[in-house]
């Protein structure tokens, strides 16, 4: 990696001012993407502002109809949290399927969402569960957050502090893992609440996305039979050595059906 300074602030304000002071600063959360990128010499920040010791950025709480997860909460903690398991088991399952044990022990929900890797798991949950992303300066609805491949609505220096997940009536995450990376080749989160159904798909396109046709079909009848092959056109999907766009389109239908079947119980 190239040389950089590492700074370890212990408050959000300090982190922000360090970022502002840096020539080309970069926040470091769990580092599960950033550190490999640095090792490959694919990024050259002047300063890394490590969020590890920032107070108040970690932890999970439940209140009424919402689960709130602070940005620096590790995947392992989400997977093992009893309140998450009870309220949104699909979210605990999703967290438990990210990477491997080492990744889950280091990686954070805020880091994953801010990075918005097209094959990451969390964006599907954030989008399908209609979550709100809380930052140091505002609240952003999930529908407005993920704007493109590795792109989000976050502004320069804006820091995610917390994510609010409304508790759904039922939800399920089905992931078809890339055999090499075990990222999502296709990952589907289906969530149902108050006669509203949201279907979010990760891994298949340049950015996580919802599918209106499937959502409409499921709102009419929340049953696997509502999902027909060919509902998702293959044209805009990713294609690579592991899966063609046609195969991904097929897998989306299969995974949504399986997610609905699981959610129905």
């Amino acid at each position, binding site marked *: 990696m190239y040389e950089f300074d590492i700074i370890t602030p212990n408050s959000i304000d300090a982190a922000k001012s360090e970022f502002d002071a840096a020539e080309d600063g970069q926040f470091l959360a769990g580092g599960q993407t950033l550190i490999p990128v640095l090792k*490959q*010499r694919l990024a050259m920040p002047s300063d890394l502002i490590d969020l590890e010791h920032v107070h108040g950025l970690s932890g999970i709480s439940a209140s009424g109809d919402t689960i709130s997860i602070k940005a620096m909460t590790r995947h392992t903690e989400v997977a093992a949290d009893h309140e998450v398991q009870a309220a949104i088991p699909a979210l605990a399952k999703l967290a438990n399927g990210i990477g491997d044990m080492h990744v889950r022990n280091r990686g954070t929900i805020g880091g994953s969402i801010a990075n918005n890797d097209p094959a990451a798991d969390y964006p599907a949950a954030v989008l399908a569960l209609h979550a709100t992303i809380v930052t140091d300066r505002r609240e952003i609805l999930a529908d407005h957050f993920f704007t493109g491949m590795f792109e989000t609505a976050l502004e320069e220096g804006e820091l995610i502090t917390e994510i609010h997940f409304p508790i759904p009536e039922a939800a399920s995450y089905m992931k*078809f893992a*890339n*055999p*090499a*990376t075990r990222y999502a080749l296709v990952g589907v989160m289906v969530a149902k609440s108050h006669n509203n159904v949201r279907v979010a798909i990760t891994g298949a396109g340049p950015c996580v996305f919802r599918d209106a046709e499937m959502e409409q079909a499921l709102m009419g009848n929340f049953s696997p039979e509502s999902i027909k092959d060919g509902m998702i056109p293959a044209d805009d999907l990713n294609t690579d*050595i*592991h*899966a*063609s766009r046609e*195969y991904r389109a*097929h*897998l989306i239908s*299969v995974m949504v059906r399986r997610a609905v079947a699981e959610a129905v119980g």
Partner: protein
Amino acid sequence: MDTTNITNGIGKSQERREDFRFLTGAGSYIDDMNLDGQAYATVLRSPEAHADVSSIDITEALALDGVLAIITGEDWKVAGYNPIPTKSAVRKAIDGSDLKEPPHHPLAIDRVRYVGQPVALVVAESIDVCKDAMELIDVDYDSLPSVSHQSEAIKDGAPQIWDIAPNNICLDFELGDQKAQKKAFSEADHIVTLNLVNNRVTAVPIEPRGALASYDAGTGKYTLWNASQNIHAGRDTIADAVLGIGKENLHHIAPDVGGGFGVKNGVYPEPILILHATKLLERPVKWFNDRSESFLSDTHGRDQVSTVQLALDKDGTFRGLRTETVGNLGAFCATVGPFTPTGGSSRTQGGPYRFDAIYYTAIAPFTNTCPLDPYRGAGRPEGSYQMDRIIDYAAAQLGMDPIELRRKNLIPTEDLPMKSPMGLDIDCGNFPEVFEQTIAMSDRDGYDARVQKSAAAGKKRGFGISMYLECTGGGPKEEAKVSFREDGKIDLSVGSSSTGMGHETAFAQILAGHLGLEIDDVVFRQADTEATAIGGGHGGSRGLEVGGSAVLQTSREIVEAGKKIAAHKFDVDADKVEFSEGHFHVPGSNHTMTMREAIDAQNDPDMLPDDMEPGALNISSVFERGIISIPNGGHAVEVEVDPETGTIKVDGYWVMDDFGTIINPMLADGQVMGGVAQGLGQALMENIVYDDGGQLVTGSLMDYAMPRADDMPRMVIGYYEDAPTAKNLLGVKGAGEAGCVGAPPAIVNAVCDALKDFGVHHIDMPLTPERVWRAIEDAKAS
């Protein structure tokens, strides 16, 4: 009686003595080793598949603080060293002409021919400075058309990689009786043809390649610590053939090596480059590949496309086999490269089945890809895949039962010993019995219920079997040297080398077991040109067969020498002395002497007969194998396929191996399981992909899929031990490669069995979910 001495004997699942060191981070690998004053080297590699190097500007890089030297192809030309030679055992084309061997210099001279080919060596005070310097080197490449695939390379009009090799062909090859094969085909009722791809893979040893070199200007001697599995042969090639420094001036050592699988067998450019640099700078120089460089520059394996034809009669009797292969060599002849698709893939054609005639031909072309060299099995997995796949394919085409087809055609025991149509000396074995035991162990009674259970879950279950026959290989000679220290420790040096297979345990087990001594007292030393005069390293499943036999031979010679010491003490003739369970004794007398007492006596002239010198029990002995042995066995597999996604779960795995005598069942199990993991990887997911421009698409573990623990089935492994071979002292047949020989055809057979109702009878490896799904969809559509 003290029985502790015999508990270490042959046949015991002795726990690995080296594991504590390996598993607690106490191993000594190249990257753990550092010398005073050490400099670091990195390799600038070609980003182009085929290009003329019009200029290399190192001015800026050389000016960087901390850069010590930059060596380019131009420097190499001036230095005048020889290219790295191939040691392929097959050296002639069918017409008798020599194979086309292009000059393989450690650095590209004037032209690059594959992505990853070394273009310059940078030596600096740190790896970071090396990397900074590499970014400042300005290389001008003039791109040339390239060709990645062997079938394209041999076509007229394909880009030409070497002037000496028209149509890019290094050599062609034939083995067998073409006339007899044609006759068998003309008489047979059916001829079934199957085109097969044996996919290109790479070994991905957990320790990448690396080396550390030093030079003593006073003595003119070099030392090279190298993550290699073949240090004696490597020394000879590097010192004598390439650098011309004389092999006596190169001390070549492999410390703990983290996996080899053939990929660390050959001579590579980088260790040669750092030997040059260490002398130039008079400082130790260390180089270590990162994982991405390993994908680019570790030799790859397999990569053969073949047409296989099976001729058989109406009643299923096999008559003839015909195989035509095009095997990719990459851009150069690697150390054994040209041998793999030719001799290496031909010898076991036909497997353990009876044929009137077999005829094998191959073409081995160059391509603009990383050179290929042996990877675990090197030719036998290809042969086994061809044979056992076409049996199932023929059974499907002709409406026969693949199990019955095998049962009918296995070579009966009364035919042994025999020479196969490929000239292979099959001395012993019991193929029908191994086959029946494989079937018997694989829980056939419960199969139908499992099929029903899978069906209820929307899945398809299938069963597949393969009967592999392979042969060992590698250097025929090995030295085992024993010396007894005064502190009771026993130094054992062997020329075979372990890259993690457990020699430190198995060899010590043979020595201690035979002499009746404690295994914990054995101090093992390997892979050091100063520890043994000769050494064949590791390759061809030769460790126990040759190295283990050498240890036994040395052990026996120690016993014979010990008998003389005992006879001197007992005052009887040496031929009256017997040795068992660690004791010398004379039947019918009270005379007894332990091996340990004889060892203590060997340094006391008073205790020795007149014709013995002190230290007479410190013995070195060389064992030479006559003919290679024939490991064989059966693999049975159950798979469950999800037809909706194409996902395959390997749900049951049974292996019956004939490895002759089993020295340590636990180590043998480890070899089989590891081999099956690599075979499963090749069958289901591993695949090296170059795009049409010669860029490596699978250049990291983000793209190259490998099996993980949860991909592996629970395995049941048995050993047929009633046919030990007389070809070596231990009666062993070589266990190291068999797992990845038997696994791919058995797994693919099981998947095709699961999909037979769809009309799917063949899918090329790797059987990725998409390929399986597409095969089903295509079959539905047709």
